[in-house]
């Protein structure tokens, strides 16, 4: 898979995935698009390494993840800025339950998770990656991925239940 056509096809197939992964970390549309552009240049330069990797998708996602983390740290965007309370029940207790709002809320809850949990739940539940690919991305074993995935799912569910209960009180 080293020809230019194969490279372009491969990269295009990952475009939206790496964008969403970067966005889940950086929480900014424009920043995520910049990361994708930067990423594709790097992937082109390292195409021989990338395309011969056992898990090329995971390898590229790992690159995207690291770029997003670096950029986030560089801009000192601590996750503390993610304020769940800010998007939750309105003053009169009414709860907005549109799908879009729920998705936005879930995204923020995921963004507030520890790094490995965040990547695990995003790559599995949003992108539908196999556990072994996520293990390659996170550079850990599959048992560790399942553990982080479990914790992430439970954490998101618990926070959602708390917020839902708060909304009906």
């Amino acid at each position: 898979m080293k020809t230019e056509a194969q490279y372009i096809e491969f990269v295009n197939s990952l475009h939206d995935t790496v964008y969403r992964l970067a966005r889940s970390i950086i929480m900014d549309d424009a920043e995520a698009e910049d990361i994708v552009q930067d990423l594709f240049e790097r992937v082109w330069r390292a195409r021989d390494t990338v395309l011969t990797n056992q898990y090329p998708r995971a390898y590229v996602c790992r690159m995207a993840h690291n770029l997003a983390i670096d950029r986030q740290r560089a801009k000192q965007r601590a996750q503390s800025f993610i304020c769940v309370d800010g998007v939750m029940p309105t003053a009169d207790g009414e709860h907005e339950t549109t799908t879009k709002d729920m998705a936005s809320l879930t995204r923020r809850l995921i963004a507030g998770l520890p790094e490995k949990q965040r990547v695990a739940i995003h790559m599995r539940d949003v992108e539908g990656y196999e556990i072994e690919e996520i293990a390659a991305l996170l550079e850990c074993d599959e048992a560790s991925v399942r553990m982080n995935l479990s914790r992430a799912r439970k954490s998101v569910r618990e926070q959602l239940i708390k917020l839902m209960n708060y909304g009906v009180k």
Partner: protein
Amino acid sequence: MELSRVKILVDRYFDGLTSLDEEQELARYFAKNSDIPEEYQAVKMMFASFDTLREDTPKDKVEVKRRKAFTISRRWIVGVAAVAAILIGVAVAITPTEDSIDIPVQAEPDYVCYVGGVKIEDDQLAYAEASRLLSVVSEDMQSAMAEINRLTYYNIVK
């Protein structure tokens, strides 16, 4: 799907043990059923949110070819700039500054002579050597002239 089956899958899901197929089965169940038990409402919200997040795409697609071309172009520019910088650096390094100019002041010799094919540029030495040679020539000339005068005298006398 039976509720018992849902419970098993949900438990396995939150333990991180479900396969992708099982997770899709759960997603379909929560998407199609409106009468979900209260305990699974949060799970339904999670699956609905994942579906929405999956549709999240960037406004502008990165054009891979254009980016690649840009990369190559930039490499050329950087390469040419690097070579130019090196050449300029070398030129600056080898160009003597005003302070470092050390041109030996050497006057043109007033006298030059060749002795046995060897060029002598030292003024005094050349002058002395030329004078010596001219003296020798002069003495030889005087000697020759004396000899000529003597022979002329004999011829006349005879």
